[in-house]
């Protein structure tokens, strides 16, 4: 027999065959901690890793995907991802490299376009930016962007593929994976909690 659940949010990280899908292992616990601190949304204390080609993907309507390396989905992963998005699921992809036109960006956007359609710039007044916290200037800049690494690469927009007026795929080049890949306990050293935008992504997924 199955189990009676109470609509608890479970943070899911996509496990795909190519690339380093587990490059940011602390992101889930950090966002789980933030969600629990800022909202009353029931959240499972631990996240799960779910294979992109597995039927289990359909149990987690919001999935996070990241990596540094080129991305090539298998046929099974493409098929399952298509089913997931068609049924109302949302995929949040973050390029763990701070660059543009890099290998992850090129390959991941190509794969996602094949499954979800063209990724277009998301306007900075989209509902995502006031889903919980208010970000009047669009996606918050990460410390890596501000550092510049000497390249002054600040990405002003996120990319998105929509189903109607809902975001189905959210693609970020801002390297939130690096930004959020620290232990939640270290947050006390920051004047402004930089995981708040992650809370927005989750609340947006749960309410739209």
């Amino acid at each position, binding site marked *: *027999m*199955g189990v009676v*659940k109470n609509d608890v949010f479970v943070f899911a990280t996509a496990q795909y065959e190519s690339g380093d899908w587990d490059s940011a292992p602390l992101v889930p616990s950090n966002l789980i901690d933030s969600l629990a601190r800022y909202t*009353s*949304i029931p959240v499972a204390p631990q996240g799960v890793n779910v294979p992109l080609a597995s039927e289990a993907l359909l*149990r987690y*309507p919001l999935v996070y995907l990241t990596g540094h390396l080129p991305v090539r989905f298998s046929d099974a992963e493409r098929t399952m991802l298509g089913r997931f998005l068609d*049924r109302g699921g949302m995929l949040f992809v973050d390029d763990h490299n701070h660059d543009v036109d890099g290998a992850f960006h090129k390959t991941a956007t190509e794969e996602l376009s094949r499954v979800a359609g063209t990724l277009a710039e998301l306007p900075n007044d989209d509902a995502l930016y006031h889903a919980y916290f208010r970000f009047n200037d669009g996606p918050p800049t990460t410390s890596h962007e501000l550092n510049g690494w000497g390249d002054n690469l600040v990405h002003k927009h996120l990319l998105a593929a929509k189903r109607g007026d809902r975001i189905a795929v959210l693609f970020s080049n801002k390297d939130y994976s690096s930004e959020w890949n620290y232990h939640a306990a270290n947050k006390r050293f920051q004047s402004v909690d930089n995981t708040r935008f992650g809370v927005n992504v989750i*609340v947006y997924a749960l309410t*739209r």
Partner: protein
Amino acid sequence: MRQASEWVLRAVAIAAIAVILWRWFRPPAERAAVPEIVTVRGEASTSALRRWTGGATRAGHVSFDGTPDVRTRAWLRALARAGVRIGWSASDAVPIAIAAAPVVDPAGGVRIEVAAPNSARVVVGDALDMSDTVRAMGAGAAVTLPSSADTLLARSGPTVARIVSPAPATLGDVLVLGHAGWEAKFVAAALEERGWHVQVRLVVAPGIAVTAAGVAPDARPVADTSRLAAVVVLDSGAVDAATGAALARYVHSGGGLVLVGDAGAAPALRALAPGAKAGAPIPGVLGALDGRAPRRGLALLPIEDQRPDAVVLEREEVSPNAPVAVSARRVGSGRVAQVGYLETWRWRMAGSDEAPAAHRAWWARVVGGVARAPVSRIASADPLGTPSDPAPLAATIDALGPPSAAPNRSRAPSGRLPSDGLLATIAGAAVLAEVASRRLRGAG
């Protein structure tokens, strides 16, 4: 002797002539009416009706194949009221009746209900397409058709009932109240995809809710319910006392309310719920979500202690004693449905390929079943002027009285007395016989 027989013949001739004259000049009510029997096939036999209208017909009997149309019936009724004794019979007529109501759904549609004898075969449709055949079970049957601006017909045997298609329902918004979560997201999504305009107020933190406009304080009760067709409450914690009172007033004044999961346990909503309490949670059956009965794969809070006026709409399985999954009741002018299933979103996400559409349609039916949907206008006739005739046999009986047997054509219509022709013959023969007798006698 001869003279006596001549007197007898004269008396017979006079008597016969007197009877003929009496028949012609007696009051109309004393005349024995001779019903003219007319068999009507298909359209009304207007020539017979014209004859009866303008002539001296005192009685008529009409035998119909089915039932007369509205115009024929009105004509016969007028003749009856003018003093013509009208009898009728319709041995092949079927007692059917048709009613139609708009489907409360943005996708539109018309629900046709037909009353007919058990096992009667009834063909329903509009004037352009009579293609849906239903068989009456018990007292009737129902079928849903796409929206039609035409006249709707139900035909059984030679009897045709007709009604003008109703105007589409006027739909307001649906408000979804609950805590932020997958169920709220997917219920709102399903209704939006179906075409409803959905408002949400989803609690994300104490005192904070998410609406279409963004994050807002949660302390406000439901404001303007006048534009709402229905409210869906997803959990008991989403409704405070003020909101509960507002919802109760809304339902009593005609609004629709859907209580999901443990929403019926909210103190402010308990009195509205069809079930007085929720039973122990029942886990979903593993693997059932993509099967023929997908909702068996959902966890369920069974609805127990049904109120006397509650109607059970769905059980966990097809069995009269199975736990109740959906029930409904009327409250004041409104309706309340209670859904015991938990996390129906799992059916949409993990069910079969048809699951998203099925989930959407199921939620549309639940909400449509309670939604307030006033009809803004009532059409009384179709553009071609064909009047409605929703219960033709009943209307005929109401207009003309019960059917009667057709009279026997071979019987002497005037009872015991001979006909006028025979009497005239007798009178003529008696006169001739008397004259002949007098001539032979030489009396002149």
